[in-house]
């Protein structure tokens, strides 16, 4: 899956757009399918380090668009398994070093492709889910509860969430110290109700998503100051309808996901204006060549495409497959693995 940006460009000025915007489903499907055919572009080669994440973004987008079979299943599974290292972790592409972030993408893709059986048959580090689980669990700092991204030691609340995401999908959460992980998240809380990369770091919508989703998986959302956090999150919406990630920053389509899913997890999605956000996201699509950009007028890419679509799905855009706010995967896939999901009550 290529991470090449473009060729499309998000909608031009809003004035030239039809009053009622529609999602260009066919164009987006075609755009994602064509991503791996762009090896004659330098950017294809410069983005190899995101290839496996790219497969997750593309495949999730296709699921949400109602075209889960638009990529060849066996090719996808073969590619994913080629990325696995001897220690059970996955690198971003064959030959790249294992990293927690590409490992969670691998697990998510395998789950969406119903490919865990192939992992059992062909996986490394003792094989199967357990081989992956051991790798992930080995990255937890047992003293603090947080996770490193790889052997070199970078720590970030994103890694903590990613590990819990993958381990819960594999049914292996018991391999880690969940209580310590929860305590670590609590230590990252700020006075505004938000969470940062690590204790002391400024609240950031991406990290808030990670911390809330990890707490959801642990069943411990009650430790969140939901009133304060809801207030901070709702202030991410700017006049144009889009959302930013921190106070007084520019809006960006990817925050349609990080912010809106966080609001959803605490039952406060109605604290922002869904219609205006929907309109903003739709303005960020290229209706002809497919794909979404961060803002209208910019180049599209698959990262913003999946988070734009996931945002639309969360907002109940008609015709889209329902997304799970915690896993950023189709809800029905998650229910197949984990059983029925609890509805978060709107207050």
């Amino acid at each position: 899956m290529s991470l090449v940006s473009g060729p499309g460009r998000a909608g031009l000025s809003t004035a030239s757009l039809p009053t009622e915007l529609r999602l260009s489903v066919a164009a987006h499907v075609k755009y994602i399918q064509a991503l791996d055919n762009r090896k004659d572009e330098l950017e294809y080669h410069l983005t190899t380090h995101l290839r496996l994440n790219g497969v997750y973004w593309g495949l999730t987008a296709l699921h949400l668009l109602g075209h889960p079979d638009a990529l060849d299943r066996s090719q996808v599974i073969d590619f994913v398994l080629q990325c696995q290292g001897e220690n059970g972790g996955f690198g971003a592409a064959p030959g790249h070093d294992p990293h927690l972030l590409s490992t969670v993408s691998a697990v998510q893709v395998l789950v969406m492709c119903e490919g865990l059986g192939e992992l059992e048959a062909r996986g490394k580090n003792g094989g199967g889910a357990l081989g992956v689980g051991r790798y992930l669990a080995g990255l937890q700092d047992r003293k603090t509860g947080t996770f490193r991204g790889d052997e070199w030691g970078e720590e970030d609340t994103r890694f903590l969430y990613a590990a819990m995401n993958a381990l819960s999908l594999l049914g292996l959460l018991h391999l880690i110290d969940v209580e310590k992980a929860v305590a670590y998240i609590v230590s990252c809380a700020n006075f505004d109700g938000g969470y940062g990369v690590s204790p002391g770091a400024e609240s950031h919508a991406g990290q808030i998503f990670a911390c809330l989703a990890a707490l959801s998986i642990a069943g411990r959302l009650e430790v969140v100051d939901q009133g304060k956090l809801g207030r901070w999150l709702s202030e991410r919406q700017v006049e144009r309808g889009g959302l930013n990630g921190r106070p007084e920053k520019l809006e960006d389509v990817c925050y349609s996901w990080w912010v809106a899913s966080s609001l959803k997890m605490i039952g406060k999605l109605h604290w922002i204006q869904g219609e205006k956000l929907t309109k903003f996201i739709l303005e960020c699509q290229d209706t002809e060549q497919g794909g979404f950009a961060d803002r209208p007028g910019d180049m599209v890419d698959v990262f913003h495409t999946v988070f734009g679509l996931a945002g639309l799905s969360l907002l109940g855009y008609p015709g889209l497959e329902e997304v799970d706010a915690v896993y950023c995967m189709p809800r029905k896939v998650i229910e197949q693995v984990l059983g029925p999901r609890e509805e978060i009550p709107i207050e």
Partner: protein
Amino acid sequence: MASHGVPRQATTEPRTEQSRLKEQKQIQEYTELVDLIERKIAERQYTREVLELTSKLLIKNPEYYTIWNVRRRLLIHGLFSKSSDLSSPSMELPSSSQIATTTTSPADSSSSTTNTSTASKETQSNLASPNPGKNGTTLDLIKADLDFVFPLMVKFPKCYWIWNYRLWLLEEGNKRLEPEVARELWNGELSLVGKMLTRDSRNFHGWGYRRKVISELESPKLHGKSMVESEFEYTTRMVKANLSNFSAWHYRSKLIPRLLSERSASDVQRRLFLDNEFELITNAIYTDAYPYAQSVWFYYQFLMTTLVDSIGHLTITPNFTDEDRIQYVRKQLVNLGDMLDGAEDCKWIYNALLEYTLALCRMENRPPLDAERQDCTSWLAELRKLDPLRAGRWDDFEKTLRWVEVDYRLASDVTGVEL
């Protein structure tokens, strides 16, 4: 990550044959370089030449995290230990069997554990040696690498891998160099990160890096002492340069408890400190367009939290009596009322008035008075008018307001203020 803020090209017309050929050549050069590095590593060539090749590749693509890892392994397993050889002949390259496992493939993860153990063995021998040549070439290598990384950071200030690699280098310095020498390196980082934050005062990588640099400079292992006063002063400068710098306000909020504790501030001094902070933020709010900027209001919220929130109580004035706190909140309500004059279209003021009026009722253990209830209703109407994006939040607020008439303790969820 892909294309944040990449403006669209002027044209989407098909590429010309000439530009296509040029791109093909670039691709070829790039992939050949990748292949060459992989081959050299497979051949166990942990040399300066290969280090140079990784430099060349990382300049083209600093997101290639595996190559940063290759570079780490080159230094740990080849160059650092070679540099030690100069003064400590017993230090040799890792045994060939170790090399075999560490070099067959940089991506082969079975090597990961081996690498780590090899590294720690080396480190131990280095430290154990009475004259390990620690400050010789190892220092030169680290310095040269820091110099190599800096322009990349300036060009790609949001690339996680570059910041991480830089930290890793410095941590290797901690392990391999005398504390005074390592400390000098960290000192350099403080001025570097200052420059980075001048270029982009909201870069959260930069702020995180700054916290790390400070904690190293303060650490006993580098013979450090507290820098909380100068850091607090730094946040003052940063917010005065730009009142919308929420990153600096945030950092300030985090420094305050330690600042006051290290000053052994008395209750009187703490009260004065709180007064000064309120004065600072009130002046900020009165500046130009800042009543409408949310950063200052979040810092205002932080200060109010120290009065109305049981956990926040400990932050600045832990020994305030309930009466003290109530008096301060009342004073702020008057202050907020004054701010409305000339800023009647500022939603933040109405929001604060609502929130802290209800907080006051809870602190005084009573339902709102009729006048307060009427005020709250009219402030809420203003909020609905001025801030329709958050209509759902105001709906919930209104429901709570109705409930408050029955039980004033219920307001916390919507106002975000807890008792």
